[in-house]
Structures are given as C-alpha cells and as structure tokens.
C-alpha cells in the first residue's frame, strides 16, 4: 500500500509546530499503525533526520500509552480500538492520513505526537484510593458484593487512562475519565468511606488542571477504546450533587 502521512512535528511545548508530509510507498496491510511509524522512523534515522516522537508501551491495547488523533478521530477510525491495535488494512491504498497529537491545554505537548498526561495522575492522586486496615490480607470473599455491582465497577475499572475522551471532546473535558475513576470505587463497599470526599476532590483537581466542561455530546463514549459508558458520568454528577448537599 502507498500511504501519505501528514504528521504534526513540534520540537517542544515552547516552539510552534507544523505538519510534515511523508510518503511510504510500501506499507503492508498487516502492519499496525505504530509499526508503520517504526518503519518511517527507521528510515528517518538512517537519513540522519529526527525520528517522530510518539507514546507507546504494551502494544496490545491495555496500557493506555498510545494516543494519536488520526484523520480527525482519537485512536483512528475503529471503535473500541487503541492506535496500537489499529491495522493498516483499515485504510486504502493511496490514502493520505492526518496524524495529530491529543490537543488540550491540560495535555501540553512534549514533542511531536507525545503529550504530557500527568494531569490524569494528579486527578487520581486527589481521591482514587480507599482506606484499608493494615495486617493480614482480608479473605477475598468476606465482603459480599452483588454480581451486578461488581460488573459495573469492573466496567469502570477498564479505563486505561489514554485520554481519548479528552482528545475527542469538543470541550476537552475529562469527565469520562474522572467519572470512571470515581465510579469504580463508588460502586464497591470498600469505596464508601471516602465516597463524598473523593468525588469532590477529584472534580476539584479536574477543574484546576484546566479541562473543559461536559456538555453531554457523548463523543467520549463512542471514541473510548474501552467502551466506558456515560452512565458513569451521570453517577458522578449524582454523587457530586449529593456530596455537596450532604456535607
């Protein structure tokens, strides 16, 4: 396949960036999107040029490191798929693909397609924890949890924190991410002691980090590679209201 890439190149957060065009004459349709970038980078290094910086780690769709805004969509055209799991067979011979970094003021660009997502870490640090007694580990089934609650909590915990929700949201809002982190603990008995404090703290830090506001467009749910549901945003809104009224 012949693929033309228009890739955002930016030396660092302080210098302005621009698009560079690269033509790859012989891309295999079995390559993943990132493998195509590996091939391109290999070529750039051989020519003595600066390779394109992009985030990646596990390359099996579970770590949340890869990003890339591909042809106007976070993680590319497929639903429920991270960039590393996107294969070139989903593109056509002769396509021009525009690749940009996540764009949000809370995710400053480090270099090229790499952005700093540590704002997410600070949101989790603000409330994503539970109280546990020290000493021996508690027996796994000592606290009964309804299957349905456990399933919902697990669905929320499937969030890999990749930031596609922020990237795709027209307001660069982090509500889907934060609500997944709030829900995962709010649904379980172990999360109850800090439930009210947690939601208030995490929302407070979310706002401090400069994420936008949720206007319920629902784009995040569609683009989320892990299919995190808007149910969690509603639950967080509910918890936030209640915790502000009660406390």
């Amino acid at each position, binding site marked *: 396949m012949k693929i033309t890439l228009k890739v955002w190149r930016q030396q660092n957060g302080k210098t302005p960036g621009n698009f560079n065009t690269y033509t790859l004459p012989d891309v295999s349709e079995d390559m993943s999107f990132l493998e195509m970038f590996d091939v391109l980078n290999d070529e750039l290094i051989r020519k003595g040029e600066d390779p394109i910086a992009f985030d990646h780690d596990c390359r099996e769709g579970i770590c949340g490191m890869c990003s890339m805004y591909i042809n106007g969509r976070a993680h590319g055209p497929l639903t429920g798929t991270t960039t590393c799991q996107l294969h070139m067979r989903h593109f056509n011979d002769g396509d021009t693909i525009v690749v940009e970094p996540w*764009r949000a003021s809370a995710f400053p660009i480090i270099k090229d397609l790499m952005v700093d997502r540590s704002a997410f870490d600070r949101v989790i640090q603000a409330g994503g924890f539970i109280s546990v007694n020290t000493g021996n580990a508690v027996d796994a089934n000592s606290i009964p949890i309804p299957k349905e609650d456990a399933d919902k909590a697990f669905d929320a915990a499937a969030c890999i924190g990749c930031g596609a929700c922020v990237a795709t949201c027209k*307001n660069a809002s982090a509500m889907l991410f934060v609500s997944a982190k709030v829900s995962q603990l709010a649904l379980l008995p172990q999360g109850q002691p800090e439930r009210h404090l947690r939601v208030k703290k995490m929302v407070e830090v979310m706002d401090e980090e400069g994420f936008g*506001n949720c*206007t319920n467009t629902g784009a995040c749910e569609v683009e989320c590679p892990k299919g995190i549901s808007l149910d969690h945003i509603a639950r967080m809104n509910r918890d936030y209201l209640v915790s502000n009224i009660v406390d």
Partner: protein
Amino acid sequence: MALSGLFLCTFLVVHLLGNLQLFQNDGGVAFNLYSAFMANNPLIKTIAYVNYAFILLHIIDGFYLAAQNRKARPQGYAKVDQSKSSSWSSRNMALLGTIILVFLIVHMKSFWFEMKFGNMPVTTIEGQSYKDMYSVVVEAFSQPWYAALYVVSMFAIGFHLYHGFASGFQSLGIRHHRYTPAIQNLGTFLFAILIPALFAAMPVYFCLKNL
C-alpha cells in the same frame, strides 16, 4: 445550565398553551383577556421575574462555559471528524443559543416591551377596555420577513432542545436504562418537534391569512 434550561422548557409549554388561543376565531377576545391576565396577576408576575432570572442565568452561564471550553483547547485540530461520535445539535449548542438570544431580543421588543412601555391600541371587551395585544401580534406576524425570522428561530429552538432537554437530565445525574430512552423521546418529539412546530405555525398562519 441543566436546572435553568429545564425550567425554561416548562416555561415553553405554558407559553405555548396560552398562545394557542391566537388560533381561536373570536377576533382576539380570548387572547386579549389572557394577555391582560398574564400582565396583571401577581402570582404570574412573580413567576415571570423568576423566569427572567433563569433566562439571564442560562445566557450568562452559557457564555461563561463556552469561553472556558474554548480555553481548554487553545489550539484546535487541523482535521476533525465528529460526525460519527456526536450529534450536530450537541456540538452547536452555543451557536443555536446565540440565534435564540437574537430572536429573544426581537421577540421581547415586539411584544413584551410594547405591552409594558409602548403605546398599545385599545379594545373593548364587555364594556371594559383592554390593551389589544391580539392586533399587535397579528400585524407583526402578517409581515413575511417577521414570520420567516420566527420560523428560522423555531428551528434553532428545536435543535437546541433536541440535545438540551435530555442533556439536562444527564447533568443532574438522572440516567436509568429504563427511563432515559423515554426522556430522550420526550425531548425529541415534544420539545424538538411539536412545540417549535406549533409556535412556528402561529406566524405562518397569520402571514398566509394576510396574503
């Protein structure tokens, strides 16, 4: 946004039900009695002030949030394709709201301002004189450009509520797999289609009648 928006949705229902009396073929007697009642009843007056407050709150909050959201992404994407992930209405609430605001200014100037401070024609019903709101409305609606403005504005309201009504519930945390589809249907069929269509029918009716 959710609370003020949903309050304004209930206002729309009341406003529509009252104004449907324009269609009553009695030379405006029912409508003029109704508009006099709306202008003078102390309870209605109190609710009207609450309504103005919510309208202002909704406008100010809307502009404030839109500005904040713009700040959250100072540099936009060169290529954006959100057609598959969200509805057009949901992405253009600020634009639709601004169209509605312009409409609201024209609308308030034509009727609310005239009723309160203008020089209204007077009509006599059962020996008592009333401000003849009916003839003011009919005269305004008879002008094609004015009717056209109303129809366009009702489209804006329809699209605004297509997203806005259900979105308000989501913002308040009211979401349930059994009830949310019903809320969405109510938003679509009642608030996005029926109510704007009936409002738009008023200027269209009087405009066509005058042709």
